[in-house]
C-alpha cells in the first residue's frame, strides 16, 4: 500500500500536468473555430453526445492542404538538425578540454558553462540582438579591424538563429559529453597509443566511440527543444525564417484559431515522440552498460 502511494505521486503529477492538458489540446484540435469564449465549438456545455458527434479531423486535413505548414515543419527540422550539429562541433572540444583539465580547475570550468543560466534567457537573446545588428558590436569590431567595409547583415537571418540556438543550448551539449569523457579511464588512451595509435587515431578509435552515449544524449537534448523553438527565431530570425513554433504562436494569438493551433501542436508532438523515444532508449542502454 505504501509502495503504491509512493509511485502514485509521480503518476498523479503526470496525469494532472501532462496527460490532462494533452487531452484538452487534442480535443480542441478536433473542434471547429467559433466566435465565442472559448473560441471553439463544441464544448462540454453542449452535452457529451453532441460533443463527440461534432468532433472531426477537419483541422488536420487543413494542415495538409496549405503548404505553409509542412514547409514550416521541414524548415524547423532542418534548422534544428543544423544547429544540433553546430552545437556538437562547438561543444565537444569544450567538453574534452574540461575533462582533460587539472582536477582543481574542473569545478570552475563547470561553473563557467552553467553561469549564463543565472541571467534571464530573454535578456541573453536581446543581448545577441545588440551584438549582431548592423550597428552592433560585432560589425563595429570587424569594421574597426578593417576586415569588412560594409556592415554584414546577420540579425534577422537564419545565421542569427543558428548562433542563438548554439549559444543557448551549448550547456545541454557540453554536460552529457563531459560526463561521458570524465568517466573514461585515462589508461584507455595510453593503451591505444601503446598498441601503435597516434594521438589522433587514439582519439577517433577509442575516445569518440566511448563518448558516443554522451554525444547522442547531448544531441537529443539540443534537437528536441530546438525543433519547437519560438523565442529565438522570432527575435533573431527574419521574415524568411520559417519555424513551426512561430507558426503555432501566430495561429494562436494573431488568428485566434485555437483548433488549428492545437492541431499544429499535436503534429509537432508526434514528430518529437520519435527522437524522445530514441533518446530514452539511448539512456536505458547506457544504464545497462554500466551495470
Amino acid at each position, binding site marked *: 500500500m505504501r509502495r503504491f502511494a509512493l509511485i502514485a505521486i509521480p503518476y498523479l503529477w503526470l496525469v494532472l500536468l501532462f496527460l490532462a492538458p494533452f487531452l484538452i489540446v487534442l480535443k480542441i484540435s478536433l473542434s471547429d473555430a467559433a466566435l465565442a469564449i472559448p473560441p471553439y465549438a463544441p464544448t462540454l456545455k453542449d452535452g457529451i453526445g453532441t460533443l463527440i458527434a461534432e468532433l472531426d479531423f477537419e483541422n488536420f486535413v487543413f494542415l495538409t492542404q496549405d503548404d505553409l505548414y509542412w514547409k514550416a515543419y521541414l524548415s524547423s527540422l532542418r534548422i534544428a538538425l543544423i544547429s544540433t550539429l553546430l552545437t556538437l562541433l562547438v561543444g565537444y572540444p569544450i567538453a574534452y578540454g574540461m575533462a582533460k583539465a587539472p582536477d582543481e580547475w574542473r569545478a570552475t570550468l563547470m561553473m563557467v558553462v552553467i553561469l549564463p543560466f543565472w541571467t534571464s534567457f530573454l535578456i541573453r537573446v536581446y543581448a545577441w540582438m545588440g551584438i549582431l545588428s548592423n550597428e552592433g558590436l560585432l560589425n563595429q569590431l570587424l569594421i574597426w579591424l578593417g576586415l569588412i567595409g560594409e556592415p554584414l547583415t546577420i540579425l534577422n537571418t537564419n545565421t542569427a538563429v543558428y548562433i542563438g540556438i548554439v549559444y543557448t543550448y551549448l550547456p545541454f551539449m557540453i554536460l552529457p559529453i563531459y560526463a561521458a569523457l570524465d568517466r573514461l579511464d585515462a589508461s584507455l588512451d595510453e593503451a591505444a597509443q601503446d598498441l*601503435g595509435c597516434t594521438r589522433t587515431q587514439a582519439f577517433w578509435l577509442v575516445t569518440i566511440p*566511448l563518448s558516443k552515449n554522451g554525444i547522442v544524449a547531448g544531441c537529443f537534448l539540443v534537437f528536441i527543444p530546438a525543433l519547437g523553438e519560438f523565442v529565438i527565431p522570432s527575435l533573431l530570425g527574419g521574415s524568411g525564417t520559417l519555424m513551426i513554433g512561430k507558426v503555432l504562436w501566430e495561429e494562436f494569438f494573431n488568428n485566434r484559431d485555437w483548433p488549428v493551433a492545437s492541431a499544429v501542436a499535436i503534429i509537432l508532438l508526434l514528430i518529437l515522440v520519435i527522437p524522445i523515444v530514441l533518446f530514452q532508449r539511448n539512456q536505458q542502454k547506457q544504464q545497462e552498460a554500466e551495470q
Partner: protein
Amino acid sequence: MPRVSQTVFAPWDDPTEKPLIRFQNVTKRFGTFVAIDDLTLDIYEREFFALLGPSGCGKTTMMRMLAGFETISEGKIELAGQDIGHVPPNERAVNMMFQSYALFPHLSVWDNIAFGLKRDRKSKAEIDARVDEMLKLVRLEKFARRKPHQISGGQRQRVALARSLAKAPKLLLLDEPLGALDKKLRQDTQFELMDIQETTGTTFVIVTHDQEEAMTVASRVAVMDEGRIMQVATPAAIYEHPNSVYVADFIGDVNIISGQTNASGTDTYRLSWAEGQQPVTATSDITFSEGQKAHLAIRPEKIRISTDQPVDADNKVQGKVLDIAYLGNLSTYHVELPGGQVIKAQTANTRRIARRDITWEDPVWISWNATAGVMLAE
C-alpha cells in the same frame, strides 16, 4: 649467492652479454619532487625482471618511462642499443599490460587483441592467425566474441596479457598485473605468467608491491626505495643475502639484532647486543672493524625454539613466549628476551595443535647457528 653454471639462466653474470635495457644515470623529476634518483640498471633479454617496492618508490615511473608515457629529466634509456628517450609510445617495440587492464569496453575480446595488429596494417589473414594464436595461448578461444564486461576478472586479465603480447614486443611491461585478482587465482596466474614468458621468450618487466609475487615469478628482483635501487639480485640471493636492513626487512619476515662487533677468528664476529647478555656469534662476508655498529638479520625460520637448553647451537638465549601466531602450516612464536627485545621464531606444525608442547608464557630457549644470519652495516 649467484649461481654460476652452464644450465642456469644468468646473463647478468656473463660480461659478454649485452643488456636489452640500459638505464644510464636516469633521473626523473616532477616539479621539485625527485621520483627517480640517478638510477643505473641493466635488464637482459628473456629476463623476468621484477621492480619491487612500496608505493611511491618510483617503480611505476620507471615502467612508464620505458613505455614512453613519461619523459626523462636526465640520463638515458637504451632499448637494444638504441636511445629511446624521444621515441613516442606508439613507435616503441614495447607493450604494456595496464593495472586496470585498460581493455576497450566497446570492442570484443577478439577486437581488443587485434587492435594493435590492425595498427600495423597487417593483412587480414595474418591478423586472424595471430589473434587465434593469442587466444589459444591464454585459453580464451570460447570467449572471442564476448565484450570485456561479459567475462570474469581472471579472464579479463588474460585478455589484457594476450593483447599486449599480440604484437610480439621486445619488452613487455606488466603494471601490478595480478593486483585485482583474489589470492588463489593470483597464485595460479603467477605460474601461468611464467609459462607464457618462457613459451614466448619475451622479456618481462613486472612492477609489484607484493614481495611474494616478485619472488615467485622473477629471475631477478630490484628492490626500490625513494627513487633508488637498493639491491638487484635473484630472489634467493635477495632473501638469503640482503645487502641492507631495508631490503632484509622489506622481503619477508626478519629479526634484527643490533650491537657492536668484536672479531673472533676469520670472518667470524661476536656481536654485543645487550647489557649482561652473552654476545652472539655470526659469520660475515663483509669485514667489520673492532667496535663497529652492526645489525644481524636472521629469518624466523632459521631460529629454533625448544623447552630444553640446546646443546649444539652456536647461539642460545632464554626467553618467554609472548605470543603465538598460528598460520596453519606454520607457527610463529614471539619470544621476549630478558632485555625486552622480541625475537620471532618459526616452526613447521608437524604435530596437531592439541599436542603442541609450547604455549603462552612458557620459558623457552631460542637458538641459531653462526651461519644462520647476515651481518649488515646499515
